[in-house]
């Protein structure tokens, strides 16, 4: 273990998590699966913010920003799951995003 753990290590981990989140969005068809991908991507972004805040300055600003990011992810999950419930009530089957392709007034 010669190398010191620096900013780059955390950036690489966050980049991998973000790419996995995009992969999840591209390959999954169920609404809940897509939500999981989005959560992975939000986590990666927050990890970047905290890593920069720790390594490039002493201020706590990046952590506050990440806190807002976590709150936004929570709101988004609540609304998305409400939509999933509604779709399930309407179509009464497993929700793939292709099911709900018809917009009906």
């Amino acid at each position, binding site marked *: 273990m010669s190398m010191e753990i620096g900013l780059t290590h955390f950036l690489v981990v966050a980049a991998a998590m973000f790419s*996995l989140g995009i992969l999840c969005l591209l390959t999954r068809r169920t609404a809940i699966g897509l939500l999981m991908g989005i959560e992975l991507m939000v986590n990666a972004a927050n990890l970047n913010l*905290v890593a920069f805040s720790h390594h490039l300055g002493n201020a706590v600003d990046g952590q506050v920003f*990440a806190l807002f990011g976590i709150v936004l992810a929570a*709101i988004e999950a609540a609304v998305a799951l409400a939509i999933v419930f509604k779709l399930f*009530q309407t179509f009464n089957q497993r929700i793939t995003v292709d099911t709900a392709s018809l917009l009906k007034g």
Partner: protein
Amino acid sequence: MFYTVAALTLISSTIVVLSRNIIRAAFSLLFSFFGVGLLYALLSADFLAVVQLMLYVGGILVLILFAIMLTNRVESVGEAHQSYRRGPAFLLCGSLFAGLVFLALQVPWKPGPATAFVPTTRTIGEALLGPYLLPFEAVSVLLLVGLIGAVVVARKESRTESE
């Protein structure tokens, strides 16, 4: 320590993405969130690590599991969920990852002075009620709007609306 936590996070994230069983994906997401919380702790962000555990593991993940249990019929929970367009998606995400890693290695980051660990809770609290008061209030209003929106969307349509 870092390598162990990073491996835990990334392996469970990979299972989240590639698993065909949605329940298994959800439980891998648990370890993924947990790993990110540990990474926060390694970055000496103690308050955020706890918030991550409480909000993600205790809140969002439970919500996701509830949604899976409620919207899948019991016999189909473990059923395979097929996925499409695997080849191009892998290609795109691989190149995205390569580009991001290239960027992270290429830019000459100038690290600030290394500091000893100090508890951050007090500083974050003062920042939230000081310079960040306006975003803090905006987020609380957004939380209220999201809550009301979720209730409005998820409830059954009332009689007066359908008339």
